[in-house]
């Protein structure tokens, strides 16, 4: 098992009476790529700022490799941050920006020079030393910000929505770049984002947060395939989210229609939430599926088509490479393995499916 590096120990934080983090408990391991994922206002940035030392928790402590660093100022911590808007020093050139932390540590001139070269090579900006940061593109500024952080050899790199301001193509390139850098540096990355695609692509572990709580924590596969509640299911990827009845083990009903599933242990005749990913909703000719409906919408999405099917007044979304014409009558078939059953939220707090993105 990996070594534990950071422990956010039952942290709570509120601003002006508004609770931002509520008893957050999180363990992060060495050399792990952790993504904290959630809608804006979910507390993810506050979590990062507590880690960096810009905020102190009201309750709880921050343990960093065995030591309590809760009240240690940011300049004494072995973490470095890549800020959302880069926060480059605009009156300095690229090399001066990168050398900032090293000069404070009174490193020798030749050491600093070597480090600058190494960092520029790592982020793919060789030859940019003398350039003014004002004349760089967004992606290049992003790379300088990363270089400026990593030359200090932090044990953890904190990234606050670093790709938010970049266009889609560049963002995808940078995702691969970040994974490469992470592997090359073998340090822990803690990455904050509201973009579920980024989280799924890059992370070893995803922490889904909402309203100051951790909703679910796990590998990208676990989060995507086995969401624990309606919020996670709704936030990660597209999904059909239906209220259903857990009739008995391996049998549920949606709007009274029975479906076979593989889940057990939810009781008998108990109301539950059901998630079915659109790509798992198969449209088959009439008579061959579980329930019939009419195609009401057909959208070409590039890789696949997305179809909306009206089933007795409830809309099912299906994704497939084979289109069905609008108005066509079809049957719906779902493999039992692809039906995900979740408990209904027990408290008001957990019932936070509505996201404000």
């Amino acid at each position, binding site marked *: 098992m990996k070594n534990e590096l950071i422990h956010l120990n039952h942290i709570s934080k509120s601003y002006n009476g508004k609770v931002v983090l509520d008893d957050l408990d999180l363990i992060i391991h060495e050399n792990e790529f952790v993504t904290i994922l959630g809608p804006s206002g979910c507390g993810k940035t506050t979590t990062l700022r507590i880690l*960096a*030392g*810009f905020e102190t928790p009201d309750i709880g402590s921050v343990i960093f490799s065995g030591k309590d660093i809760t009240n240690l*100022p*940011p*300049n004494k911590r072995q*973490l*470095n*941050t890549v*800020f*959302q*808007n880069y*926060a*480059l*020093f*605009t*009156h300095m050139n690229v090399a001066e920006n990168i050398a*900032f*932390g090293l000069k*404070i*540590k009174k490193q020798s001139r030749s050491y600093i020079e070597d480090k600058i070269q190494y960092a520029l090579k790592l982020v793919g900006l060789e030859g940019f030393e003398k350039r003014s940061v*004002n*004349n760089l593109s967004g992606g290049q500024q992003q790379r300088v910000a990363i270089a*400026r*952080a990593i030359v*200090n050899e932090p044990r953890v790199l904190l990234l606050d929505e670093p790709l938010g301001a970049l266009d889609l193509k560049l963002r995808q390139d940078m995702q691969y770049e970040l994974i490469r850098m992470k592997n090359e540096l073998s340090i822990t990355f803690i990455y904050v984002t509201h973009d579920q695609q980024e989280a799924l692509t890059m992370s070893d572990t995803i922490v889904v947060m909402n309203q100051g709580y951790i909703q679910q924590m796990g590998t990208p596969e676990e989060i995507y395939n086995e969401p624990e509640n309606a919020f996670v299911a709704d936030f990660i990827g597209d999904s059909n989210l239906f209220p259903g009845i857990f009739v008995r083990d391996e049998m549920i009903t949606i709007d009274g229609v029975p479906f076979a599933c593989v889940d057990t242990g939810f009781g008998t005749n108990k109301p539950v939430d059901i998630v079915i990913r659109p790509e798992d909703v198969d449209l088959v000719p009439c008579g061959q599926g579980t329930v019939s409906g009419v195609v009401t919408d057909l959208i070409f999405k590039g890789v696949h088509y997305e179809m909306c099917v009206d089933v007795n007044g409830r809309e099912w979304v299906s994704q497939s490479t084979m289109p069905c014409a609008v108005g066509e009558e079809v049957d719906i078939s779902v493999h039992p393995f692809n039906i995900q059953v979740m408990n209904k939220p027990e408290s008001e707090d957990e019932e936070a499916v509505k996201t404000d993105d």
Partner: protein
Amino acid sequence: MALIFLFMYAPIALLIVQSFNKSKSRGRWGGFTFEWYGSLFSDESIIEAFTNTITLALLSSLIAVVLGTAACIFLTKLKKRTRSILMGVANVPMLNADIVTGISFMLLFITLRIEFGYSTILLAHITFNIPYVILNVMPSYRDLNPHIYEAALDLGASPAYAFFKTVLPEILPAILSGGLMAFTMSIDDFIITHFTAGAGVQTLSTKIYSEVKLGIKPEMYALSSMIFLAVLILLILVNRVQGSSRKAQEEEV
């Protein structure tokens, strides 16, 4: 338009012309001379007034820059409502009639039994200069990316190092233009100085005033021309600094 400019600048132009007029009678052109300028610099009381003016302007603008910048930092930390109220309060002295400011300072110093002299003028100048600094520095400080300071801390800088190495250079153009403006205002001021100076200490403007009361000497035209020129140069400098900082900001965007 030309007429407006003529009215605006004709008196000053006449003043400058007269300062080079050899004839003591103002109605007649007696030839070109530097005589009045020469006798200015040989008059010790004028040299002293000049020194006073310059040191007062330097000291008051310098102190105002420090206090004004600190005020900006403090003000931005406040809630929006409190800040806009305080900003309004800070701006009032700038709009207030100089004579009111001057008399109220005089009253204050009398009440507090502070002896009139160099220090009372300095105090008054610092006070009326601070709003000009705030006016210049505030927009620049508020536009500043707040994460710049945090980034410096994050990279290991102490709070003081972070401020002087990252925040200060970013707002330096605004501080410079605020300081220059304050410097100009201080050199320019007559009324407030007049009420806070008491006997003994003279600045150029109070010197001219007292000389003129006794009868106009051509040296005063020369002196006034020089003050005008100095202020003009300073204003051009302020514009330059503001222009270049604005350009730098545009480049960032």
